[in-house]
């Protein structure tokens, strides 16, 4: 095939017609404080993992709320559960329990798939 020096780019647009709310609803039930997040980034600014990895709790919350499950699985492994983010959160989100609940439900899911 001849090379024309260009490729077709992948579609970067988020498809919000197919949002899955299952995980968001589950976390809201097990840790209701997640609904209070206002994306201020205090958590990510204080995070000891975020300096050397791409981890951002603020982004994680958005991903949960938008149902981007695929990204969440890898993200939650980066957290060391140190809880600094809990101390700085101005909305009192129990950040550590959000991660814990995510790990619980996503690990269970994994086992079921195996």
């Amino acid at each position, binding site marked *: 095939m001849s090379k024309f020096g260009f490729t077709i780019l992948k579609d970067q647009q988020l498809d919000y017609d197919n949002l899955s709310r299952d995980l968001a609803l589950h976390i809201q039930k097990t840790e209701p404080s997640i609904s209070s997040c206002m*994306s*201020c*980034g205090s958590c*990510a*600014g204080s995070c000891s993992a975020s300096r050397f990895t791409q981890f*951002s709790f603020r982004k994680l919350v958005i991903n949960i709320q938008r149902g981007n499950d695929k990204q969440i699985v890898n993200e939650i492994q980066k957290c060391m559960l140190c809880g600094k983010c809990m101390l700085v959160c*101005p909305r009192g989100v129990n950040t550590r329990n959000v991660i814990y609940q995510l790990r619980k439900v996503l690990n269970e899911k994994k086992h079921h798939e195996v």
Partner: protein
Amino acid sequence: MLKRHVAIIGGGISGLEAARVLSKSGHEITIFDAGEKLGGHVAQWDLLFPNMRKSSEILTALLNQLPKSIHILSKTTIKNIERFNGYYVIHSDRVENVLADAVLFAGGFDTFDAQRKEEYGYGIYDNVITSIELENKIKDHRFITAQGTKPKRVAMIHCVGSRDEKVCNNYCSRVCCVTAVKQAIEIKKTSPETEVFCFYMDLRMFGRHFEELYREAQEKYGIQFIRGRLSEASEAQDKTIIVKAEDTLLGKPLKMNVDLMVLMVGMELSKALVPLVEKMQLEVGDDRFIMPLDEQLYPNQTKKEGVFVAGTCTGPKNIPETLNDARSAAVSIMSYFDQLSNKN
């Protein structure tokens, strides 16, 4: 019309404006104020948003409009207010008690005590100051760090003591956003080579010409706006402040050394008013500001007959809102007096 007596608690702008309207209608007024001079917080301020007008102009106008017949009791603390024979008796640290037909709470606000946000280092690090202190620095032409040098870089931290469950203040203090923009512009006017960064969560430019001021800050003064709440601050060896936050729009953590960090402190109900509010059993909201009888319909009345509220003791307000609220309270008081007269 029967001449009645109104006791106004607080000699800030809301108390003064209510006094003007009420006395114009022939009522007798006594203003109680804890301070030496009238004018409350506005008397401590230099320039006002959004038009950079001198606050002293406003105050002079309000004071000049007051008739001489008004009784002013400054440096006075009220101890108790009692209901007696349809009157209110005001016991203060003065010898004589004051008898009034109505009481107007215009006791205003206190700024948030920034030491309560210990992780921000106010009172610990020399170069962490409040917006009040910055206002005074600029007013006195002493825009310098604690070490006496000219700040090359300044961080303005929004929402200090506001929108923060950790200090039990879930509400927005409203005026701090535009104050930060105003003060950032003043810094650039005083010292054009200084870099100014505003750390915000949301910019709430709610009033007329506020948005334009924000735009001016961007276009004319190159002030930078970083969307992220301060996570922690620490002091470097050279006494500069290390700011840590997330640049949420880029999704990456950031650190920045600044020569001066300014905390935009929010509003809380005036502490001096709290014991009186409790004694009189006035209702307060979960924000601890006084609740009026009805937030929409009767914003200046309370559940207690003859007790009225005006200004920032019912929540954060800017100057025009406060003055309007005071006029509205004066009208409420006058119609209450009409009702009393019709009954008899």
